[in-house]
């Protein structure tokens, strides 16, 4: 199957937030996202924008799940944010209950998804690349038709909310 890959440029954390929010606003059905980027790329910040677009209550603290492994938030669609960095075996992904969350009516964002076996489970793969202090390239990929449409619509949004 053809993979659609699009890139968006961001010049500041604020712009990255708005881009993520704009993506979040477009998600109306369960979605599994693999999120990657080096330390300091702004992965947590991206999820904060996504959370805003999904309608997580303003004033909620959307923070890094590196230690707790999974953070969950109530929204239009519940948002689960996982970071698998601390896991050492792929069967631990099963132990922490991530597959149940991914099979539920929710948006699940997974960092260090390579700890799992196979990336086929993901609808979207998003990679944030660092350029200097505040510039970022956000690359998004989708293979399914529905999520390709979603990405095309996101790409056309030249003035993110």
């Amino acid at each position: 199957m053809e993979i659609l890959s699009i890139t968006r440029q961001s010049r500041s954390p604020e712009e990255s937030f708005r881009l993520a929010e704009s993506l979040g606003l477009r998600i109306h059905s369960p979605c599994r996202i693999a999120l990657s980027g080096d330390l300091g790329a702004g992965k947590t910040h991206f999820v904060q924008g996504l959370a805003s677009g999904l309608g997580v209550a303003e004033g909620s603290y959307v923070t890094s799940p590196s230690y707790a492994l999974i953070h969950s938030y109530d929204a239009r669609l519940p948002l689960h944010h996982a970071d698998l960095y601390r896991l050492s075996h792929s069967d631990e992904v099963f132990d922490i209950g991530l597959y149940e969350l991914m099979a539920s009516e929710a948006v699940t964002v997974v960092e260090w998804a390579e700890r799992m076996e196979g990336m086929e489970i993901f609808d979207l793969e998003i990679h944030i690349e660092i350029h200097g202090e505040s510039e970022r390239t956000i690359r998004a990929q989708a293979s399914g038709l529905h999520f390709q449409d979603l990405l095309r619509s996101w790409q056309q949004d030249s003035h993110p909310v």
Partner: protein
Amino acid sequence: MRILGIESSCDETAAAVVEDGVKILSSEVASQVEIHHRYGGVVPELASRHHVEAICPMVEAALAACGMEAGDLDAVAVTQGPGLVGALLVGFGFARACAFGLNIPCVGVHHLLGHIHSVFLEPEKTPPVYPFVALVVSGGHTGLYHVPDALTLELLGQTRDDAAGEAYDKIAKIMGLGYPGGPVIDAMAAEGEGGRVFFPRAFLDKDGLDFSFSGLKSAVARFLSEDGGKTSRADIAAAFQDAVVDVLVSKAFLAVEKMGCRDLAIVGGVAANRGLKKKAAQEADMRGIRLHMPSPFLCGDNAAMIAAAGYHYLQAGKVLGLDADVFSRATDPGRVAVRHR
């Protein structure tokens, strides 16, 4: 009143027996005990399966350590949240079944409230007087709370991105120092000179009580890649630690001042950090504030603190109903004890 405490919210599986909310009769923590010996091999470090395997031996060890039998217990207290649902459920299910079988009450304790009760568990130390301010600082949490009584936490501010302990872990990782990062960087910082490098302090808005450690993490990462090994690692560790400790201490005392309290408790895994302890003690002395920090064995996750807090739940009649469930988020609205201020 003898309460069995059970904790399984994250990595540690722990059981303890505490009398009247203040006296530790026994306290066992699986990741610190020679669990490898018990099973004759490697156990997964994380996740629910580890809890499933460790919970019975931990409870048996806690009872044996104080010469008690299950029938001598008056109640069971268990961490209800926040934490990893799959991990919490192991302790929670065990505790409720255990209490049901023994026909004694079971209470569900808020993990952060448990940490705060760790300052009541050392008889040689004077406990704080309500109302006081508590800084809960660990790998997963960094927050300031106003504590008006034994069962209430009012959130004053918390991290907007990384927890302080997590910043330590991530910096230790890029410096190649291993996991967990806190103790290593603390030791290394003691050898270094903090003034040789300056890392930014994220005070956010000066008057607010929220924290941010993500910018500091990026600044250290950037410095490391640009410096190319010219600055000693001890100096970098010291400068990083200074930046973290500065922010934690100044926000904690700002909260004490704002709330008009005389007592400050600093609890959680990072409370074992010597740099933090030293700076907080200096500041407390200067301002005439009574500082309360638990000994290192009570800083990390343990079940004694859960049993201690559980005593107050029991006194208040907050016993778990049959439909009770665990919860994952620290600041979920409407959950036990925590309210926003």
